[in-house]
């Protein structure tokens, strides 16, 4: 039987090649995902293992937990007195201590004065430490920076900007405007690559002068004296700090921060890994349809051969075993090819993740044993499981089948699968209804129930597709008056409804997801756009292009701009009520309603005073508060309370608490503006106002002036990037589905070679044969595409209903795009038919018609 299985693979290698490729594609994605995340993991492991001070002392806010590792809400703005550095250096357990100043507003400018690199990643600056054991930074070329005219630049930053040692470089500072020091050296991190964004390094005094204030540091690093453990040093430091009143301070050992970093990274990667794997398994799931198809067809073609084996004495088990063995061998081969492909996929994923804005460190290629095992288990497992049904049928072939001349596939009734399929769909409906009826607060639960409904509906649809195919194609067939090429094509699509529908289903699953994602995404985009239209009354908004707060100088430089009616700003600060975090927005109450349309339903913005706030109706419900109530909260600077004096309707992102600027400042907000809003006094002079605003913020590279359209465009761009990401991932399963069409068609062309020969003999041209096969592919693709987009539309709409409470208020179905999916999906079917059609048209008439 070994020999029989092996011989079969060799004999049918061309036909099995596509099946192998299909499985290999799925494996490649699964393996590639693992290789990608393992590789990143290893580079982050080296990040965790990088040199760091034995103890880091950093200030924190009341909202940061002691274990948060000094990542304060705005860590760069929190300070310690510089005098503390020497005090800590003097304790016996310490060998040395140094102050550090850091900021992420050190924008490096290119020749045009624009910020270097993409907007997202921070523009970091740090003071030079000079202790190798405490810092991952190393000078690779030149020398460390000394004095206000020298700066060291991260190698990656220098490469990006085309800088080299000795060049002048323009860097934005907080306190001295744009400075142009000389590059004294290039630095690298001890780990390979960077974390994205730019990094420049000044000496300590210069960093302090440019980005902080005299006698202040952002954090203090302490190195232990010989023989002193990190923990001992930490407790000694805590002892010193307890004698002072410096507010909340985090004291963290090097080990603690390393552990914490690795934990955080692992968490992040577990999610990414799961997310990506889901797409890989989707592709494999789609592939199972095609494997089942392939084996069913191969066995139908081999009926006589298998029957002969049975006739000469092979047992059912042996026939069953030989088919499974064949499947296992194919699975093994696919796993090997898939692993190799996985390496390519890992690079592809990297490029894709880079594309959505996360800049990843360069990572060595890591292929863990677990990846190898996973590839083998999944590859062989999926193939063998898919072949199980066909193998069972092969085992039931009676020995007498060897004597029959025709090996017509048994046409089993479609009724059973139709009934089961309808039951699944019937079951999906109450799930969908239930999901809509669950309390609006439980979005996750609602989504889970609706997700279950979607899975039921998809399985149900897959099961009833053969019946649908039979009915639909039967109906279309009836519409043709003559049995030319087109009618024959429909007939062919209809003659084996199971096979046709398995091929179509593979396509419809991918398209259903694609359509649903598109409906949800487009609705989200429209919803946000609508919120922007409804809420932003200002003609212009100035924000930080790097999604960070603005320096107050922005407001200062535009507040008296001519041609403006109102210029105002808002500041946001986090606060906690119980365990939940909310946003408090500070506004200038006399101007805010001119620039933001807040629908106040109780109280008024003008009546806000120190210590009082408005809250949106949803948050009010969540917290169980109303006007007149006092909410106890933890602010950045400690516990306190807010008295609620009014309620407004939340719209999209406009939610949380509203308070006056003095209230916000009293609870520890920094002098940083979230946005500056400007309305023009004369609508006809808007463009002049824009020009003037741009002129005034010319020296502040991170600030950008936007009107409503600009904001919407920016949001659209972000959505586009997300769409591309998801489409690229879903594209895999759709590619597998198209390969399935190629596979099914080439197998059925082979199966019908005598029929094609006959058609050629009675006068069908090669071109007509090609058209016949292509039309069949087109019908299969149309069926899959229509079913897929229909399910996608239904569930996309239902998910929008559920996410309405999360801000996706408006349903926007992108008909044009869905029309495009339908056309592209159908066209894909045509493309997939090219090769099988060509093979069919080249079939030798004589070999087809001559009797064996």
């Amino acid at each position, binding site marked *: 039987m070994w020999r029989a299985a092996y011989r079969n693979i060799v004999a049918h290698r061309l036909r099995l090649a596509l099946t192998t490729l299909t499985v290999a594609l799925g494996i490649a994605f699964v393996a590639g995902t693992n290789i990608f995340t393992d590789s990143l993991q290893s580079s982050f492991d080296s990040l965790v293992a990088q040199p760091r001070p034995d103890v880091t002392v950093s200030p924190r806010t009341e909202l940061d937990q002691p274990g948060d590792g000094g990542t304060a809400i705005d860590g760069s703005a929190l300070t310690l007195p510089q005098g503390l550095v020497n005090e800590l250096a003097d304790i016996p357990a310490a060998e040395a201590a140094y102050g550090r100043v850091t900021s992420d507003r050190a924008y490096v400018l290119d020749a045009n004065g624009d910020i270097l690199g993409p907007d997202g990643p921070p523009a970091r600056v740090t003071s030079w430490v000079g202790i190798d054991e405490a810092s991952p930074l190393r000078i690779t070329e030149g020398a460390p920076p000394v004095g206000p005219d020298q700066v060291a630049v991260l190698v990656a930053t220098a490469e990006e900007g085309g800088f080299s040692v000795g060049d002048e470089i323009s860097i934005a500072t907080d306190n001295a405007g744009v400075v142009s020091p000389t590059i004294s050296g290039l630095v690298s991190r001890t780990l390979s690559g960077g974390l994205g964004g730019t990094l420049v390094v000044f000496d300590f005094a210069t960093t302090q002068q440019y980005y902080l204030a005299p006698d202040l540091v952002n954090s203090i690093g302490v190195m232990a004296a010989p023989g002193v453990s990190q923990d001992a040093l930490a407790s000694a430091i805590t002892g010193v700090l307890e004698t002072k009143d410096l507010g909340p301070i985090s004291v963290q050992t090097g080990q603690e921060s390393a552990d914490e970093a690795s934990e955080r990274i692992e968490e992040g990667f577990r999610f990414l890994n799961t997310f990506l794997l889901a797409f890989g398994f989707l592709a494999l799931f789609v592939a199972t349809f095609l494997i089942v198809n392939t084996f069913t067809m191969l066995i139908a073609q081999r009926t006589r051969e298998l029957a002969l084996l049975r006739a000469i004495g092979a047992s059912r088990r042996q026939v069953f075993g030989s088919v499974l063995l064949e499947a296992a061998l194919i699975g093994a081969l696919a796993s090997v090819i898939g692993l190799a492909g996985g390496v390519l996929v890992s690079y592809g994923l990297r490029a894709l993740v880079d594309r959505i804005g996360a800049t990843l460190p360069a990572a060595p290629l890591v292929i863990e044993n677990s990846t190898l095992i996973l590839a083998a288990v999944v590859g062989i497992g999926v193939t063998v499981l898919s072949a199980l049904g066909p193998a069972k049928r092969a085992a039931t072939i009676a020995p007498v089948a060897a004597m029959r*001349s025709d090996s*017509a596939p048994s046409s089993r009734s479609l009724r059973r699968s139709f009934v089961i399929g309808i039951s699944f769909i019937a079951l999906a409906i109450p799930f969908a209804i239930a999901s809509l009826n669950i309390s609006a607060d439980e979005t996750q639960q609602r989504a889970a129930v609706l997700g279950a409904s979607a899975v039921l509906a998809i399985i149900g649809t897959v099961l009833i597709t053969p019946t649908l195919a039979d009915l639909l194609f039967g109906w279309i067939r009836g519409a043709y008056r*003559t*049995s*030319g*090429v087109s*009618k*024959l094509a429909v*007939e*062919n699509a*209809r*003659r084996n409804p199971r096979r046709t529908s398995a091929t179509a289903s593979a396509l419809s699953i991918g398209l259903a997801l694609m359509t649903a994602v598109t409906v949800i995404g487009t609705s989200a985009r429209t919803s946000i756009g609508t919120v922007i239209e409804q809420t932003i009354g200002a003609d212009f908004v100035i924000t930080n292009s790097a999604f960070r707060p603005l320096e107050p100088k922005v407001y200062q430089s535009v507040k008296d701009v001519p041609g403006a009616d109102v210029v105002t700003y808002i500041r946001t600060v986090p606060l906690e009520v119980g365990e939940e975090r909310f946003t408090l927005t500070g506004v200038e109450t006399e101007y805010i309603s001119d620039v933001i349309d807040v629908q106040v339903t109780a109280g008024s913005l003008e009546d806000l005073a120190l210590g009082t706030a408005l809250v949106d109706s949803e948050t009010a419900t969540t917290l169980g508060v109303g006007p007149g109530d006092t909410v106890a909260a933890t602010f950045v600077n400690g516990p306190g309370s807010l008295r609620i004096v009014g309620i407004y309707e939340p719209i999209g992102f406009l939610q949380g608490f509203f308070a006056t600027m003095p209230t916000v400042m009293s609870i520890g907000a920094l002098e940083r503006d979230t946005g500056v809003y400007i309305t023009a006094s004369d609508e006809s002079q808007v463009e002049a106002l824009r020009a003037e605003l741009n002129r005034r913020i010319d020296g502040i590279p991170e600030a950008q002036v936007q009107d409503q359209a600009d904001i919407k465009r920016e949001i659209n761009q972000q959505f586009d990037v997300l769409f591309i990401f998801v489409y690229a991932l879903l594209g895999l399963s759709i590619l597998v589905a198209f390969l399935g069409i190629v596979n099914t068609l080439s197998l059925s062309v082979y199966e019908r070679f*005598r*029929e094609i020969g*006959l*058609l*050629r*003999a*009675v*006068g*069908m*041209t*090669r*071109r*007509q044969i090609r058209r016949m096969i292509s039309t069949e592919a087109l019908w299969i693709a149309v069926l899959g595409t229509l079913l897929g987009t229909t399910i996608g539309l239904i569930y996309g709409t239902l998910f929008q209903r559920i996410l309405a409470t999360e801000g996706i208020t408006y349903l926007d179905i992108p008909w044009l795009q869905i029309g495009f999916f339908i056309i592209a999906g159908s066209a894909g079917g045509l493309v997939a038919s090219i090769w099988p059609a060509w093979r069919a048209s080249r079939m030798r*008439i*004589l070999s087809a*018609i*001559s*009797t064996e």
Partner: protein
Amino acid sequence: MTEDRKPAIAAVDVRKVYGSGETAVVALAGISLDVPQGQFAAVMGPSGSGKSTLMHCLAGLDSVTSGSIELDGTEITELSDNKLTQLRREQVGFIFQSFNLIPTLNALENIRLPMDIAGQRPDQAWLDTVIDTVGLRDRLTHRPSELSGGQQQRVAAARALASRPTIIFADEPTGNLDSKSGGEVLGFLRKSVDELGQTIVMVTHEAIAASYADRVIFLADGFLVDELFEPTPERVFDRMKSLDTPGKAAV
């Protein structure tokens, strides 16, 4: 050969060699043959005599190594695949031993198939005549799987006749049939020649089948070795016996 009738097909010194050099196999060793219009010719010969190859070459299904074949005055040996396809569609009808019909089409659709492929409207009166001649009026909506073997071959014959081809090639049309059904099909072919003036070339190895023809052509080892007009089964059988190498006797 009747001189006053134009030949439907005329072959001159047709050679067909498979392979080359030492391994070359000569299937047709230079055959010249005319079949006049309205004649029912049977081609007989032992296995390997080249009778099927001859038919394939005459029908434009296979290429020749040398020689010329004119079908209704058109030289077909140099035609492109498209031209040959068109020629088959318009001037040639086929009846094969088995697998003659498209399983997804019913009897009527199968009969009309060559015209539907060509996008031509069939001549309804002629179609009716053909259908009535083969006696399939009540079976037209049946699919091939619902027809008996003899009925299937009659549908195939009707298809071959329906487009009024210059010539019909029948390759062992009764090979898979019992003698009664075979007789029906052969009787019908005979009738189409007598009543409709059809030209037919039939390859067979059955003496009884050959006896329905006007003329029997005997092939052996790629040569045209003998001819017989007005055949009877006995005469054909005798001729075959003399041609056949021992142990290869056709049944």
